[in-house]
């Protein structure tokens, strides 16, 4: 069973955070904010599409809003499969981190 990639994980988590406002731009912003790196729009379009194809995300078109010049936006939502997948990934993470004590992570000078 495959686990999610870091990008996919980040996007799914961002979508969960943003709830009803989860469309392309805020997602990009959120991720950039947290990771501290500038993620361009282009870099998240492709994983968004991929996740939707894998049925971890679903999307619908919102009502038109004035701030987008009367245009629609595509709002994403994480599916149950998506949530399961996130949990699996988290477990895997935890297992990997288990038994690694704080002192071991200290960077030693050589």
């Amino acid at each position: 069973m495959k686990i999610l990639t870091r990008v996919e994980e980040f996007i799914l988590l961002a979508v969960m955070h943003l709830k009803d406002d989860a469309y392309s731009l805020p997602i990009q912003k959120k991720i950039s904010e947290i990771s501290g790196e500038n993620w361009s729009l282009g870099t998240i379009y492709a994983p968004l599409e991929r996740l939707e194809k894998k049925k971890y995300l679903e999307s619908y078109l919102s009502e038109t809003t004035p701030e987008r010049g009367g245009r629609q936006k595509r709002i994403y939502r994480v599916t149950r499969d998506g949530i399961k997948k996130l949990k699996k990934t988290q477990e895997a993470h935890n297992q990997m981190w288990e038994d690694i004590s704080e002192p071991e992570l200290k960077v030693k000078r050589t």
Partner: protein
Amino acid sequence: MKSKKKISPPKAANWILSGFFSISERELIISDLEEQFIELAGNLGKNKAALWYWDQVFKAVKGRLFNKFLWSFEMIRNYMKIAVRNILKNKAYSLINISGLALGLASCVLVMLYIDYEKSTDEFHKNFDTIFRIDRKELSKNGWKPWVDVSGQTGEWMAQDYPEIRAFTRVKSLPFYNFKVSFRNNYIKESLIEAVDPSYFDIFTFPMIRGSKETALAEPNSVLMTEDFAQRLFNKEEPMGKIITISSEQEDRVIEYDLKVTGILENIPENSHSSVTLVVPLEFAERVYFENGVENDFYGSNGFVTYVLLNEHRSGVQLENKMDDFVSRRFGEDKVGIKVFTLKHLGKIYSFGTTEYKMTMFSIIALIILMVACINYMNLSTARSFSRAREIGIRKVVGAGKLQLIVQFIGEAIVFAFIGLAAAYILAQVLLPVFNVILQKNISITFENTSGILLQTIIMAMAAGIISGIYPAVFLSNFKPVKALKGNLKIERKRFSFRNILVVFQYSVSIFFIISSLVMNKQFNFFTTKELGFNTDNILVVKLDSAKPLDFMENLKSGLVSDREIESVSYATSIPYESFRRLPKDPRLNVKNFLARAYGVPIIYCDSDYLRILGIDIENGSDFSPGEPSNNYGSLVINNAALYLLGENDPIIPGRQINLKIEENRFRDFIVQGITGDIYFTVRYFDVEPVLFSIASPGQKINYNYILVKTRTGITDEAAAMVNRTISEISPEAVFECSFFDEEVNATYKRDSRWKQIFGIISGIALFITSLGMIGMSTYSCEQRISEVGIRKVLGGTVPGIIGLLSRQFLLLVATANVIAIPLSIFYMRNYLNSFAYQTNIGIETIATGIFISIILTLFTIFIQITRAAFSDPVKTLRYE
């Protein structure tokens, strides 16, 4: 948002974006970008935000383009790579294909150059679109005869009757065939002087260097000449207003006219259908005709080439429909259906020796040759398809569709065709001089005319590529990938496969051309060597520049005869194939020959040695008596064709006295002394023309132009030099030309030999391409059957047996081709021969030679491959199975 003014991203950028994305995609992307843009604009300012926006759009579009085109481009690059690799991998096959296509395309390029040259003949005239020539057809016993001239009134009447005609002009040549144009001591020999209406220069816009079109033909003795001609006649002197003299020597007098130069024309482009050098007004021609009694009714007789200028191009067709009406009104009801006028547009009038028929023939032949080359490609690529089977299998497995494969293989054929086209241009450049000599044209490959035909040739190469590629493409793309990859793809041999049909077609074409050119050759030889009726060997012809009287000739003759190398000498007013003095038309004479009826019966005044030197046998009666000329005065020798001159039921016998009209209103009695066999003194398109030979008394004041010198041994350049020397010693002032008689006679038939040469070359090319294909096919076939040969040898097959077995299939194809081509060529050659009055038969030997050449050549081309296969070591060949 933050700013009160509404900020929006650059419209142009959005417009570009919308061009690359579908509506649903576009909405989202633009809205995302816009939102970000507005935010950025708030932070960084509008300009920077716009810059950013453009950058985003650019990136998006770039990605799109990459996906859309780069992959298809990659694919094409891959096809090209495979094509080039294939060309390089199978060098022999590629060479066969490319050289075949190059030859085929080179033929097309040459024909296109030729047609382009002919089509552009008279385009320089401003009125090109609306100039038409009035042509005439008359029904006679032998069917319709076309003429390019009409009577003098026709143009005038037509212009009166039809308002569509804005102007007309008539062109008539003066009745001199060889004349001198002289200015002071300088003179030029010319053969054509044309008389025209003043409107000539309104209709045809020949640029004039000196003089104006309004005044140039105003006076009856004006003359215009081309720049070149003026240069030759006047050197650097001013030509305008100078008086020049035109003089024509008849046998017993000299006609002379003075003309005043009133204009100089720019040189006429050489592919113009009009070949004017000297132009005079029609009034002058009328005077010349009248004063020399050539025709009584000047404007009533034919001989006027008439052009009309119409108001618009399409009036030409409309006017033609009214011509029956015109004939009945102007020529009488009884002429309707016998006399037909047609209008020919200037663009359809080609330079000398070219007809629409000939151009169509050339085009068809070039296309057939190209087709033969395309067939080579088809056959070789399908025959070799097994070597591509793996590639096709892999492509199909990886996901190539059938259509993609078809495109790939057609593309490959087009690559071949274009390499062929490049080679064809080089070949055409090399072959052009030969082509020009055969056609008697001066076509060159220049930037202008090649750019004119470049597009056509590219289309032609494309078409050739598609035609030759489509069959292999469909054939190859049909392979089943599983079988193809397993490598046990065997192409079954069918007796009547499409490939065999194509080979039969190629051979049929070649055999057809071979037999045709053999028949043409035979007819030509029949024409030139066999039935002349006189001998041309060891005879030198001396043409005097001006005709000389009897005593001068006698003096020259005795001087020449004293030379030991010279057997005999004769002088005469004419020799075969030169122009003749002709008796005026005489209603009492029964003349059937076309030429003699049109121009009068030819009469040659000569001395008593003339017939003997030419080796003309007297069949009935006797030759002129040698020695004292006075014994022969008033006696006549006639040829066989003149036998019924006095009437159908009244053959002339030796000793008979006949009365002939020797000039207008002058008659003389002659006694027929001898009758010769059939001798052709004039061109042999028609039946034998009657010719009369007579020895003139000094009182007749006949002047002579020609001397025939028969040498003892073969004539050489030294003999000619000696004759030259002797004549110069005897009469230093004489101007003359000396030539070999047989060469002179052969030159007369040069034009007829052109078709023969062209067909010879064509059959050579067709045969060459076909043989190339055959080499390829036999190579392939032997490769395919090598293990069969091995097994046969192991089981006791002999080498000759195997050679026979392998060649059988090819010989069968050639035999089939013969069966198809022979009836076809017999049919067409019958038609060809029927165009000659004196024709040879096709002959069994011609057809046998055709069969022989095709079979021997086939055996020769397949021989190497087949013997190699037959002698192959079964141990080696069978090991692979």
